[in-house]
């Protein structure tokens, strides 16, 4: 192909995007590490060098372990459900039945609605004298403090995240299901395999890469939850529903403890980067082929 562009043209085209990424991604990325070695507690305008003090403070702080633990519970509860249940729905929707578009729209609806509105809607369902406690008492149990009881608050928030994610992952699975050759199912039908056996032996192995992809994306987004917690519980009661991002927000923007918050952010960075690397190297490699 003839080279019709000048020596500088490629750089000129990339420049605007590069400028934004440098100012709002790369500089903040390195600055996060830099800030984590500073002490802001005496003077917010001229921080002192703190060495590893923020990290020792972090690793001595029981709240850090609580928050880390909560985030991992978030992962262990939300990720398996989001990897499996939407696949089940996608398989159902993929049958040749009527009304598929309507089902898809209704199940996708929570995805597009603002997380703030979704969290408010659930807060209302979870109210002390709310509709969920009506069901609970109707079944003969005591009313539950969905968002106020330390035993339940984290799980109540996780439910919102799951509810809001199901439609999104279902659509990803539906796209993957289109690639499963029909002959395989026909062979199963001849063998007389039932619904579950058919999909366990044909569908699941065939779309394993998509299942793995959904697992890692949902894990990465579970690491980043914020709005649900901010709107519904503010991390409470005590720290029982506080996760990593909420804790960073609180320490940075409410306590103005920038050094400590940055050390916490470095921990988050390391965890998310490991997940992302796995994702890119194993599942999305073909998308990023140079």
């Amino acid at each position: 192909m003839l080279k019709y562009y000048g020596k500088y043209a490629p750089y000129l085209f990339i420049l605007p995007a590069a400028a934004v990424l440098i100012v709002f991604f790369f500089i903040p990325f390195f600055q996060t590490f830099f800030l984590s070695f500073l002490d802001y507690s005496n003077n917010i305008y001229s921080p002192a060098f703190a060495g590893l003090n923020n990290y020792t403070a972090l690793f001595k702080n029981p709240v850090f372990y609580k928050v880390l633990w909560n985030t991992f519970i978030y992962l262990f509860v939300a990720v398996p459900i989001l990897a499996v249940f939407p696949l089940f729905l996608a398989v159902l929707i993929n049958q040749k039945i009527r009304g598929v578009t309507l089902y898809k729209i209704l199940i996708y609806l929570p995805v597009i609605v603002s997380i703030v509105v979704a969290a408010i809607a659930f807060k209302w369902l979870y109210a002390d004298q709310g509709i969920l406690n009506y069901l609970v008492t109707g079944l003969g149990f005591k009313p539950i403090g969905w968002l106020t009881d330390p035993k339940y608050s984290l799980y109540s928030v996780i439910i919102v995240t799951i509810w809001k994610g199901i439609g999104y992952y279902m659509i990803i699975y539906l796209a993957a299901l289109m690639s499963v050759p029909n002959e395989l199912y026909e062979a199963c039908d001849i063998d007389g395999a039932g619904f579950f056996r058919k999909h366990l032996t044909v569908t699941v192995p065939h779309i394993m890469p998509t299942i793995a992809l959904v697992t890692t994306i949902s894990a990465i987004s579970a690491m980043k939850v914020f709005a649900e917690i901010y709107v519904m519980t503010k991390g409470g009661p005590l720290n029982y529903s506080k996760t990593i991002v909420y804790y960073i927000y609180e320490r940075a923007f409410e306590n103005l403890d920038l050094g400590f918050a940055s050390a916490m952010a470095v921990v988050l960075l390391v965890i998310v980067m490991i997940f992302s690397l796995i994702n890119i190297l194993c599942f999305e490699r073909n998308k990023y082929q140079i």
Partner: protein
Amino acid sequence: MKKFKNLWIHIILILISLLSIFPFIWLISTSLKGNAENIFAYPPQIIPSDFTLANYTGVWDKVNFIGYFVNSMIVAGGTVLLNLILSAMAGYPLARMEFRGKKVTFFAILATIMIPFQAIMLPVYLITLKLNLVDSVNNLAGYIGLIMPFAVSAFGIFLMRQAFLTIPKEMEEAAIVDGCNVFQVFWKVLLPMVKPSLAVLAIFTFIGSWGEFLWSSIVLTKEAMYTLPVGVNNLQGMFSSNWRFIAAGSILSTIPILIFFLAMQKYFISGENEGAVKG
């Protein structure tokens, strides 16, 4: 037998669909109940007995929804526009040109996918303050500050690069023979051919920007600059336990994006665009 099986599938899907929309139905129901009706009544009533639109007019009078809507439109519109321009511009040389440092550029952009905004938001905030891009300076600066951290993404750049890769080389060659320079090739020949990808990028960027909450709640200081999610969250403080108003306000704020979704639904539910979503 076949009919019977499909019946079960329909029952399950109807149940799941109901669970998906029930929180909204219940919110709508509450928003339509007048003061004469106990919203905590057992058993709960889905159909309001004291039906009224007073909560909507009440919350509309007290809250500047038009203002929030305009702010959200400016921020989402600006974010979409910048993403389209910057992603297309950066995607073009990455797909069609050879130059020194191409590999490094490619992997540097790829690396940003791994950096969650939540982990770097503090320095991003400090930089935004330093650049005076906050609403305490003036409204325009406030808008720019809301937009800039999301003005371009690696997802967008790779999406556009992928789109440019699929265009046959003869297109450019023909344009050069006709006397186009590199900018004309980009603007007049290539860009019109990647319109479908631009549409996908625009729609998903719009949805993401419209629902953005964390960054807006960090940088915004003036109520007049609130976007819809920040304004709706603020309803909780304004009307503490007046759930009729909170519900009405939440539903009002959802109408624009609902219309957008229904109009563009094929982009969301066809499944062709997975991966373009969620930054």
